[in-house]
């Protein structure tokens, strides 16, 4: 029987020598070129990092490939970032070009540091998830193909962080990203009343609805959903498998913009709705990639130095954002959730 409750390996056993030696003693760092930075420690110790993009969903052979790179150039150590990039680190400056060449040899992009688009944080989608409204890995691949040069070159006023969630559960917590793509359902759950009684706790299913849209069927067995009140959140489906709401025609994508988590300059902020609905169009989602490309290009053209997407939009105002991007402002953009009134304008300060 396996040992339990042993926890993960101690990270200290996983650190390369150059880091052990300078742990907590770093003085500063500088970004040398796209995907490459240099950290300098008290006493002059140096560490070069090369950041490499990955598809996140990988075979064990991919992991072995990056291990081969680390064995050749990095003393047998590497790390991953919270955005699923691979970081290859070495105290030897002369190894940097070798790492870059090896990464490119494997077809992997080098970049994602500084005023770039980094890798996309995302969820599982059709690879694994039961509540997905769309795929995640496929969307990410299509988006990064379109925005590839923003990963490998400095073309932006600031960093730009993209996230993809395949439903509004937002497992990747995409709600504070510069650009967020979210799978949405637009049809209420289809109740299978025959299975319901066998596999669901009916009171829990009723209570799971945040808007009180689910009630007992007044004319017979099972449950009914009040379509008017359903906001397609899927919480009922999570507690009751007999209420699926995925629908090939109803499901689509929404785009939220302008969120951030860093405190630099402006405080952290949520992403806000820019595009309420685009069709779910695999395998390459052309409507989604075109909409994102448009927003990025308008941002590049109009933002000032250091301005994150949300800071730019705050400066120019949302009304100008819609004008400049050509995105139509619709009734879907007007908030009607419980905290909605905070979003209505109570001033004479607006633009045309």
């Amino acid at each position, binding site marked *: 029987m*396996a*040992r339990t*409750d*042993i*926890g*993960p390996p101690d*990270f200290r056993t996983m*650190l390369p020598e150059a*880091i052990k030696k300078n*742990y907590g003693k*770093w003085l500063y*760092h500088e970004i040398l070129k796209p995907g490459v930075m240099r*950290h300098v420690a008290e006493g002059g110790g140096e560490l070069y990092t090369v950041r490499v993009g990955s*598809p*996140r*969903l*990988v*075979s*064990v*052979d991919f*992991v*072995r490939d990056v*291990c081969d790179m680390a064995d050749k150039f990095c003393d*047998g150590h*590497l*790390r991953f970032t*919270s955005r*699923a990039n691979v970081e290859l*680190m070495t105290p030897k400056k002369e190894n940097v070009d070798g790492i870059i060449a090896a990464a490119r040899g494997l077809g992997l*992009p080098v970049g994602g540091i500084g005023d770039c688009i980094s890798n996309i944080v995302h*969820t*599982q*989608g*059709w690879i*694994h*998830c*039961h*509540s997905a409204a769309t795929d995640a890995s*496929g969307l990410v691949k299509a988006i990064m193909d379109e925005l*590839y040069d923003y990963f490998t070159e400095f073309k932006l006023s600031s960093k730009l962080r993209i996230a993809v969630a395949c439903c*509004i559960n*937002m497992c990747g917590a995409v*709600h*504070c990203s510069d650009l967020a793509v979210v799978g949405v359902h637009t049809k209420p759950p289809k109740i299978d009343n025959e299975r319901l009684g066998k596999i669901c706790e009916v009171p*829990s299913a009723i*209570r799971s609805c945040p808007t009180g849209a689910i009630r007992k069927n007044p004319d017979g067995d099972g449950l009914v959903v009040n379509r008017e009140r359903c906001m397609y*959140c*899927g919480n009922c489906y999570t507690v009751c498998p007999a209420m699926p709401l*995925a629908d*090939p025609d109803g499901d689509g994508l929404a785009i939220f913009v302008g969120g951030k988590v860093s*405190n*630099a*300059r402006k405080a*952290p902020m*949520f992403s806000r709705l820019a595009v309420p609905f685009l069709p*779910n169009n*695999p*395998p*390459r989602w052309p409507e989604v990639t075109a909409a994102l490309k448009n927003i990025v290009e308008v941002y590049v053209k109009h933002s000032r130095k*250091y301005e994150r997407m949300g800071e730019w939009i705050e400066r120019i105002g949302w009304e100008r954002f819609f004008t400049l991007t050509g995105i139509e402002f619709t009734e879907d953009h007007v908030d009607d959730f419980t905290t909605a009134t905070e979003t209505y304008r109570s001033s004479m300060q607006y633009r045309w």
Partner: protein
Amino acid sequence: MSDTPLLDKLEEGRWPSFVKEIKRAAKNNPAARDLLGIVELSYKDKITHWKHGGIVGVVGYGGGVIGRYSDVVGKFPAAEQFHTMRVNHPAGWFYDTKTLRKICDIWEKHGSGITNFHGSTGDIILLGAKTDSVQPCFNELSEAGFDLGGSGSSLRTPTACVGPARCEWSCFDTLDLIHDLTMTFQDELHRPRWPYKFKIKASGCPNDCVAAIARSDFTIIGTWKGSIRINNDEIRKYVEKGVNMKADIVDRCPGSALSFDEKTSVLSVRPEECVRCMHCINKLAKAVRPGTEKGAAILIGGKAPILRGAFLSWVLVPFMEMKPPYREIKDLLAKMWDWWDENGRNRERIAEAISRIGLKEFLKAMGMKPLPQMVKHPRSNPFVFYNR
């Protein structure tokens, strides 16, 4: 004619392709091969082909494995059971290649050979184990020094930014703290017992590289007291290199705390006006550093929209020393979990319980004094429940 014409389209283009990766695994693994078939079908039907849930696990744990069954019966037998194992990563996602290769060997032997490095929980995700393979795979992972991560209504795998391992700005040892908390709360991590999930993330400075303020119920973000440190010899070098101190640094300071004397090239700060946002430090890394009295703030409640709307965490403890054995933070966690267990409803995150019951009541239960640092502004309504 290919069996996967739609997925094949995702092998095109410059960004590395996950389809190529699944195909690599599929060369000698039937589960990976059948996964391709199931996902191709989703691309065709525009709907997921994974059924809801299924209880699968290892002996002694209530979480760490996500049961998953396909709804396509008979056609793709090798991927009909396709469970996920979450494997707790070492803090900071550092590895030596010997260990990584070991994980690869174990996963190739017991599963589909398809993984995420890493999932959005922070764990190593092993995608696609059959029910009978889950326990033997766990046994070997455990032999290799690994353990499962959290899932369900438990403590989820805590995560940390790169911290003092490779960052000059980290105001405490994020890696040591997260490793310590993970080891201390193994029981809470493996055996779900709460109203819902609970996430802990630690970032070493207000840049918040692991998005702790948005993605964790219990958010730890490094900060400092007192003045930032400015080295004006280095400031002069930045000016010589063409940095516009007034436009790019002073005018962008959200606290209006900086001044720059053009004649002497001296940058100065009024510390009481600084909000420690990191802008000047980020842009002038050689010249400006965080203060020396370092610690962290504790914020509570960050979560995605389900169910009562998304929250960014709220400031609860504006400054706490963050040194081993981390008694104060552990006591606070235990006290919070007790309160939440007592007051939270089923599937109610701690922030939702606080917003329903009131921050005022929560502070009382925690034995905390209200502080102006906790709010953006005081209430504007007169509906006070006076208690005098």
